């Protein structure tokens, strides 16, 4: 098989499919799913750097997502900046926040980090809801009509699709480079055993900090992209716990700590989500989260490695049968 096809053929096929998808299925409904899918894949891939590779399970990544989203719209509201101009500020704020979170919690191991992330995200969500400067419970709105191309407001979903696809490609390329570098080996060593990693000379705290900062930066970009498309943010859609939940479940379903795991997870979950929303109507969102909870429990109980691990095991079983 290897002689006929290049080793990377699944990746090339996937890339081609993603590039051609909106041209093959041009309906507005399919394009909307495509854009939602890409956004979920970007957020989950960003989460994956610290939650998957480094094994530091954040359940409050919405704090970075919300920071990016709010930064983009806040400076539009204050001084009429185009939303895209808020991206670097959102990234800076997210990296700053990641240091504030990481400094105390990475001294400790285990569940402290998870507990701290969930509490800080909740703290920020409630606080944002009471702070008039950022629109309190009502939230912020972006420009209603484009003042120029730089506002990135398009009638069609197509430009968003390719913009998001480009960001996802960059993020995955960076992750792929990290995987092969010393930094990537450090991350996996920490995940396997923090104590063993430290005894072998891995700078554990600094490595975890770097991973969290990088992850936070890309999550903030995902938040900015979200508001550039929707033009609206409020405390729940920015900092809500369900935003964090989606990142965790998408990454864990595909395979946390694998390059394409989050993408595969999003590929399954986003169409499933829009299907349940269509079947069960407006009240379906509650059922979506029951489903999410059920999937998370099943993954944790039976296949913590996600679908990638399942695939690897099934393949091995199949090969053994073949050789037997």
């Amino acid at each position, binding site marked *: 098989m290897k002689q006929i096809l290049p080793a990377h053929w699944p990746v090339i096929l996937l890339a081609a499919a993603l590039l051609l998808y909106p041209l093959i299925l041009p309906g507005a409904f399919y394009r909307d799913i495509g854009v939602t899918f890409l956004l979920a894949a970007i957020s989950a891939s960003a989460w994956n750097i610290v*939650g*998957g590779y480094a*094994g530091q*399970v954040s*359940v409050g990544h919405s704090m970075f997502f919300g920071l990016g989203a709010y930064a983009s719209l806040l400076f539009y509201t204050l001084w009429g900046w185009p939303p895209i101009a808020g991206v670097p500020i959102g990234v800076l704020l997210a990296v700053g926040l990641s240091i504030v979170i990481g*400094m*105390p*919690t990475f*001294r*400790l191991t*285990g*569940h*402290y980090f*998870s*507990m*701290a992330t*969930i*509490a*800080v995200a*909740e*703290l920020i969500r*409630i*606080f944002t*809801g*009471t702070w008039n400067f950022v629109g309190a419970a009502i939230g912020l709105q972006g420009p209603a009509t484009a003042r120029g191309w730089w506002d990135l407001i398009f009638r069609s979903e197509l430009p968003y699709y390719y913009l998001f696809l480009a960001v996802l490609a960059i993020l995955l390329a960076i992750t792929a480079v990290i995987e092969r570098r010393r930094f990537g080996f450090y991350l996996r060593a920490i995940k396997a055993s923090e104590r063993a990693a430290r005894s072998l000379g891995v700078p554990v705290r600094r490595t975890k900090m770097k991973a969290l900062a990088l992850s936070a930066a890309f999550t903030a970009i995902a938040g900015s992209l979200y508001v550039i498309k929707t033009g609206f943010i409020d405390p729940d859609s920015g900092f809500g*716990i369900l935003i964090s*939940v989606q990142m*965790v*479940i998408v990454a*864990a379903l595909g395979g*946390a700590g694998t390059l394409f795991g989050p993408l595969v997870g999003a590929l399954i979950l986003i169409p499933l989500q829009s299907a349940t929303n269509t079947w069960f109507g407006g009240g379906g969102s*509650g*059922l979506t*989260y*029951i489903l*999410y*909870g*059920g*999937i*998370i*429990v*099943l*993954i*944790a*109980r039976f296949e*913590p490695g996600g679908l990638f691990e399942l695939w690897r095991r099934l393949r091995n079983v199949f090969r053994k049968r073949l050789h037997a």
Partner: protein
Amino acid sequence: MVLLQVIVGGLLLGAVYALFSSGLTLIWGMMNFINFAHGEFVMLGMYVAFLVVVWLGGGPPVFTLAAALALFALGVGIYLSLVRHVIRGPMLAQILSTFGLALLLRYTAFWIFSANFVTLPQTSLAGTVKLGGLFLPVAQLVAGVVAICLTLALHMLLTHSTIGSRLLAVAEDRAAAMLMGIRPDRMQMLAWGLSAGAAGIAGALMATAYPWSPSVGETFGLIAFVVVALGGFGSVIGSLYAGLIIGLIQAVSAFWLGAIYKDIVVYGLFVALLWLRPQGLMGKA
């Protein structure tokens, strides 16, 4: 005088916080495991009480006992079917297991009971008593006093009984406990039952005094984190003090700053604690 009233009200609620948080700290101390669904256990305790009152018309002793038994069974069931299998697995599986469970329980409750706030129908604990110039609702008074007694009872059980010694032995050194003829699996199952049972009783007690909806599980879960972090992970008596302190801080900040800010103050305190004293007030490093 109003401030004193607020303080006493806060301490009474804080006692209930202490009761359900002692359940969380028990699991943490025993198994080095955080139950993200603990707040949902409290919420389920409230709905069990509600259903018992509506369907069977039982009084407070009946529905509190029912909530305790139902949640004890649920805790044992969750240990056997879920926790036992993930406890030696990767960290991701440990966190996701109860985190997913929390979502499952919370949104199933939303689906069944809707997001509306409910209160228990009039129980025998209605009315207020006047104590030295303070007007206290009977339900709050009973809930607070019963919660303190039960938290102390749990502490006594752990420190002054054979069962407690066995539980602590498993917590300290699983392998050595096994060599002493203790079955760790059975002890951990018991700990999960006690933990969820405590949450269930706390829920039933609060149901008599406060209105609630399925969303309270998330709030109580976070409050339990804060109490456990303040009291020291694994210390029941620590969580008693910490619960009272958190209840007091919440009530006073709601009184001075406004009701919206009470959770901000409490979560802010949690973050500050993680910065300054991660082992908790009573905990050992």
